Every structure is written in C-alpha cells, then in structure tokens.
C-alpha cells in the first residue's frame, strides 16, 4: 500500500509538472494564384447549426476575395421550409441528387472544397468541421493552377434568357476524363432559418443553388485535355419569373466547375463565377 502511494504520488507530480512549449496560431496565408476553388455547402432552412456554416462561408469569401465560388445546396436533409415561417422552398431535384452524391457525410452543415476525397469513411468529400473549411480552401489554392475558364454571360431582361459561353484553357496536359457543371445561384434572399433553438424570420440566404444547367454530376467536357487546346461550350437558360421574390437576376451568379469524372476521382480542377448582371 505504501509503495503504491509513493509511486502514484511521484507519477502525479512528474506528469503535472511537465510544461509544454506553446506554439502560436498563425494568420491564414493568402496565396497569389489564378486558381478559383469550389466550395459546396450542404445546408438547409430547418438545420439548426447551419447559420454557423453560413458564417464560415462568408468569412472565407472575405478572406480570399475572388478565389472561392460558393454554392449552398438545400437538398433533402433538414432542408424543408419551416412550417408557418418560410416563404420559399429552396429544395429542388438536382440539389437533392447532388446532396446524395456526396454521401457519406455525417450531418449538416458540411462542406466540400473542390470535391477532394478526405479519406474518411464517415465523410468522404464534405466535412462537418466548419473550422476546417478555411484550411481546406487554403490547401486547394496552394495547388498548381492547371486550367483557366473564361466566361461570357449575356442576359436579356425582357425575355429573361441567359446565354452562357465559356472556354476552358488547359495550361498543362491533363490526363483522364473531365466533366463540367454549370450552377445558377441566388443571394440576398430574406427568409426564415432555424438557428440553434430559435428561428430567425429574416435570415439572409446567399449562394442558394437554384438550378443546375447540366446534369447534376456534370456534362462531358473531354478526355486527356491537351495544353492550350481550347474547349468551348454554350448554354442557354430562361430564368423563371415565379415565385415572386425569387429568380432576381441582379442577385444571381453563374458558377462553372471543371472536374474529374471517374468513380475514384471527382476533384475540381478549376471553378469560375460571374454575376448574371454585372
């Protein structure tokens, strides 16, 4: 008994007396690059923790201006309108398909940065750790810039027809199969949002995925892209005029992402975004 007491006492004193050399927390680095990364956030109006995700996305957009294209995917999970509070329903079929395409994920909010495989069986592409999103953006911005996207938008306010022309310019030879996805997003939508255990009646919803003009997992761009061999694509879409309060062209963006299309690699090579009305 006496031996035990001495051993324990010494162990406690020894362990508690250890002092660490503390390491300071550095500020994020803003790389000089022409890369633009795609940040796809799984969110929902009925998701109590999602305002945290919204705040994290806005902080990233402020920290890396012009370098991040954000999409808010209101799929199925916790995305139902709030009964008696919501004016709009942000859900749509392609958003639901895209949300399921990201499976497995642990919950919401979760975000994928450039669809990089996280090597985590619980959350393959989208992580629920909102604090990790910024670091993931930084990592992607520090990768080499391999492809540029030039986008030209024409919007006719009378017919509400939006013409999208884009050119993909490989800066190096890129092996493999590539797809592209064209998203339409809308911001500055004031509507109800669950926040913890309260409901915010007038929450500003930004980057809400309103439509995908391609298939939800992309249309074919090409295989084994060659350096400086341009690929041009043209799409047209008529913005709906209902419901009232939505589909406001002045609040809408077109986002284009070019990404790998194999079953094992879905990573995004480059993203681009433009306002529908500049």
């Amino acid at each position, binding site marked *: 008994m006496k031996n035990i007491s001495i051993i324990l006492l010494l162990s406690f004193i020894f362990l508690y007396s250890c002092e*660490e050399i503390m390491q300071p927390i550095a500020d994020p680095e803003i790389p000089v690059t022409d890369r633009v990364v795609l940040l796809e956030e799984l969110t929902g109006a009925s998701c*109590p*923790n999602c305002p*945290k995700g919204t705040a994290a996305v*806005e902080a990233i957009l402020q920290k890396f201006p012009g370098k991040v294209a954000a999409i808010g995917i209101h799929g199925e999970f916790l995305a139902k309108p709030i009964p008696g509070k919501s004016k709009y329903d942000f859900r749509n079929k392609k958003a639901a398909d895209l949300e399921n395409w990201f499976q497995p994920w642990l919950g919401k909010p979760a975000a994928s940065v450039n669809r990089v495989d996280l090597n985590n069986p619980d959350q393959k592409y989208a992580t629920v*750790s909102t*604090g990790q999103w910024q670091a993931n953006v930084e990592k992607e911005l520090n990768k080499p810039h391999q492809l540029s996207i030039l986008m030209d938008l024409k919007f006719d306010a009378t017919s509400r027809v939006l013409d999208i022309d884009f050119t993909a310019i490989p800066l190096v030879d890129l092996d493999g199969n590539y797809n592209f996805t064209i998203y339409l997003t809308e911001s500055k939508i004031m509507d109800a949002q669950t926040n*913890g255990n309260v*409901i915010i009646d007038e929450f500003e919803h930004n980057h809400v995925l309103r439509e995908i003009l391609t298939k939800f997992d992309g249309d074919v761009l090409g295989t084994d892209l060659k350096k400086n061999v341009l690929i041009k694509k043209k799409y047209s879409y008529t913005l709906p005029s209902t419901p009232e309060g939505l589909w406001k062209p002045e609040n809408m963006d077109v986002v284009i992402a070019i990404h790998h299309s194999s079953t094992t690699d879905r990573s995004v090579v480059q993203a681009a975004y433009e306002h529908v009305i500049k």
Partner: protein
Amino acid sequence: MTRILPLIFIIFFSSTLFAQEKGVFSGAFETNANVFLRDSSIHANNTPQYDHQFFGGEAWLNLNYKIQGFTIGTRFDMFHNSNLRNPTGSYSGTGIGRWYLKKQINKLEISAGYLYDQIGSGFIFRAFETRPLFIDNALYGASMKYNFSDTWHLMGFVGKQKNAFDTYSGNLKGIRAEGFINLGSEESPITFAPGIGLVNKTISDDYMSGVKDVLRSYQAEDRFTPSFNTFASTIYNTLNYKSLSLYTEVALKSKDVFYNPFAEKTELVGSTTGKLVSQSGSVLYGSLSFAQGKWGVTAEVKRTENFSFRVDPNLTLLRGLINYLTPLNRQNTYRLTARYSPAAQDISEIAYALDLRYKFNKALSANVNISNINTLAGDTLFQEVFTEVIYKHKRKWQLTSGVQFLTYNQEIYETKAEVPLVKAVTPYLDFLYKFTPTEALRLELQYMNTKQDFGSWIFGLAEFSIAPRWNFEMSGMYNNKPKKPNSKGELEKILYPTLGIVFFNESQRYSLRYVKQVEGVVCSGGICRLEPAFSGVRFSMNTTF
C-alpha cells in the same frame, strides 16, 4: 494488423505442442443481416441501401484460447454495406477487429493488443465496445498490472484508441491503483474499496494541425494557444457497512481543447454558438444504496462541467471518446417508455435520481424511480417519475404495470428549434400467462399521451413462447394523434408493425423480423445526424461456444 497474426499463431501453436496441460478454447459469433425495403411514406429511402444495395449486415467472430497462464484471442469483424457506422451511409470493411495476448507471471499480468478496461466509473477512461452504435474504443497498446496482494493492485497502460480497422493518432497513457480495506470486525465489517487513476492524452501533430487550422479561422477574440497534453485524474471509493453502500467519485481534467456547442463564437458580423475552447473540467458523482427487510433505496447525484474528452477535439458524435459519462436516469426497456431517453451531457449537467423498492409479500412488489436532470444554469433537461407494480399469481401468471410521467428537453437533446418541452404520460401493462410449463403468452400494452413532437402513440405486443425453442411475436406502434405532417404535408396516422420469430438451439439464438421503425433526428456536439426510419427484414443470430 494482419502482420501481427502470424506471431500470435506461432505462440499459440508452440504453446499447444509443448504444453503439458490442455488448453481451453472459447468463442462467440454474432451476425446481423438486413434486407432494406424502400418506403418513402416513412422516409425509409435515399440511402445507398434503399437505393441500390438492398442488403447490408455485420458479423463478429471471437476466438479465445487459454493455456499455461497465457490467454490469446482474436476477433474477425465484417461490415458489409452496413449502416451502423453512419446511418445515412454505407460502410464496408473486413478484417481482424481485435487481437490480444495476456500472460500471468506470478503477481504480474501483462497484456498487449486491443484491450478493454476502465478506471473507476469510466469518467476519465473507458475502453469499451457497443456494437449497435459502432463504438469500439479498445486501447491498442500494452498494459501491465501488478498485484501487490489479493486486494491491492497497480495497473498502467500506454496506447492509441482504435478507430474501426485503424487507430486514431495521438497517445493515451494511464495508471490505476485499487484496493480493499476492512476496518470493522468479522461480524460487522466496514469495508472500503478505494481507487485512484490518472490519464494523460497527447494530441498528435496531425490532430494539432487540424486544431490550429480551425483556430486560424476564428476571430482574434476567440483564438487561444492549444496545448498537446491533457491530464485527467480521478479518486473513488466504495464504502460498505451492513446493508449500506456508498460510492463516491471525483474526476478532474486539466485544460483541454474541446468543442463546446453552447459557447458564443464571434463572427465577422454578429455571433454564432459553438466553438473550440480550452478549459478544465470536473465530474462529481455519488451513489448511496440501502436495503433493509422489504425496502431497497438507491439515491444518486452527478455534476458534470466541461468534461468532453476526445482523442481529437475536431471529432464529433460518438467518435474518439476517451471516457464514458454514466446517465443517471432509469434505463427503460418498454418501447414507449424508452422513446425519450436523455444522453449524458458532458458540458453542463446536474442530475439526481432516486429509486425506491418495496416488497409487500412474495406475490406483490413495487418500484418508484425519480430522475431530475438540469443544466448547471438551472434549465430543465429531463424529469421522469416511473412507477412499477409487479404481481405474481403463483406460477401461473404475472402482471407488471405502472405509469411514466416524463419531461424531455428536445431543444437540447435534439437541437430542435423553438419546440416546447415534451411532456408525456405513459401508462403501461405487461401480462405474462403460462398455459403450461413450456407455453406462455406475453402481452404488452402502452399508451403515450403527449401533445408534442410526433403526438400520441399506442404500442401493443403479443409474444407466444414455446420453451425452449420458439418465440413468435407481433407488435405495432401506432401514431393515433399525429402532430407531424408526412411528406405530403398531411397529418397521417401511421402504423409501424413488427412481426418476428425467434428460435433457440441451446446457446444459439436466431431471430427473423419484419420491421417498420419510425425515423428521428439526433444532434450532438453541434452536429445533427439523421437516424433514419427502417423498413425491411432483419435477421440476427448469436451463439457462444
């Protein structure tokens, strides 16, 4: 892990060949197999299993062998399109889930491999397995236990926590000393069983890098310098005097980085809740039991503050838990009385429980259980009054009946916004009638009356058993006063039926059930997780040998 196996088998076979004495083999096998039948009306859809896999299951095979002071064991684990790890995902993995080797050398006991153990009640360390929740927090490492006498021992361990077929990085180290003292006389003993323990967690460079990444995204006022090491200590004792038993435990944790879902986080504009913090924590626990004549009384109290303890602060839900915080409420078994069950809160909780038992005579006994759980700020989390009366009529029939009064804070336990406290009254009846010594019928009837959440429920069950081989069961859970609209926006009265057959063959148990089970959302640590509805056929089998 598979590289270690040849070594185990060399030891195993050489000891078998040269041993004078015969060894003892033992083992166990358990398997679950699910056939998923999509039913969008109850939201049993949109997971890979319902969409295209249709089948999923798990299996575990344990083998243990004892010879000449050696104990070796291994466990084969198989997950095939399993929804245990992530209820909305599909997980497949096959391999050796556990191996271990133990050797007793006089007073010394050494162990290596994947080990299960705990210190005290588990407040600072518990390496354990709970298969239905995909928890297998074995310690992958080595431990040494020295028995100074029959009553005193010292144990130390070093290792990493298991993570499916891998381990988390970062190290865990700990020591435990336990003993037994009798200060009374032989006729009137007063015994003490004291214990003390210490655990040190060192976060790996990789996890620390993740913590720093998160802190870098915080505004300056929320940032702090994280430390790699956390120390947790505990001291506990069981005092027994006649029919009185008192267990007390105090656990403390030094400054530790953990996620506090209730802490205010500063944003560029305004604030949100939930962030990493670096704070110390404590758990105080006491349990007093007394049995005298026809009476039995147990009173418990537990106070928890900032005692989230994980191998990586960025892990969520049930991942990477180093410790285990015991819930104080009654662990109910009936379907409706168990519907609202509170998870132990690791950030802020004060809980009281009282259990009274009285035996009127051989035929009649009664039990009242009261639980009250609040936050340290005084907000109501959970209240329950549970009564039970058991009447046994000779050996012919038995009636168990009572009522549960419950208050449950859905805002906290399920992070649901602007929902009132669930207040439910649930009377229940359990009637067992023996037709013959081998044939019996058991009937259950429960009614949950509530105006909150899904609304009121009726549950009925009939179970006919033909001992020792067969059980036939049929049950239904019916949402008779629905409060939640279905996918079409209508208030629909839905029946969730279950039909099942259970077959026993000595130590083997086989069950086959057709199940429809209601869905729910569970939130923890600021993250919400869907526990989806289930629709399909479940087969399970387990045996020991």
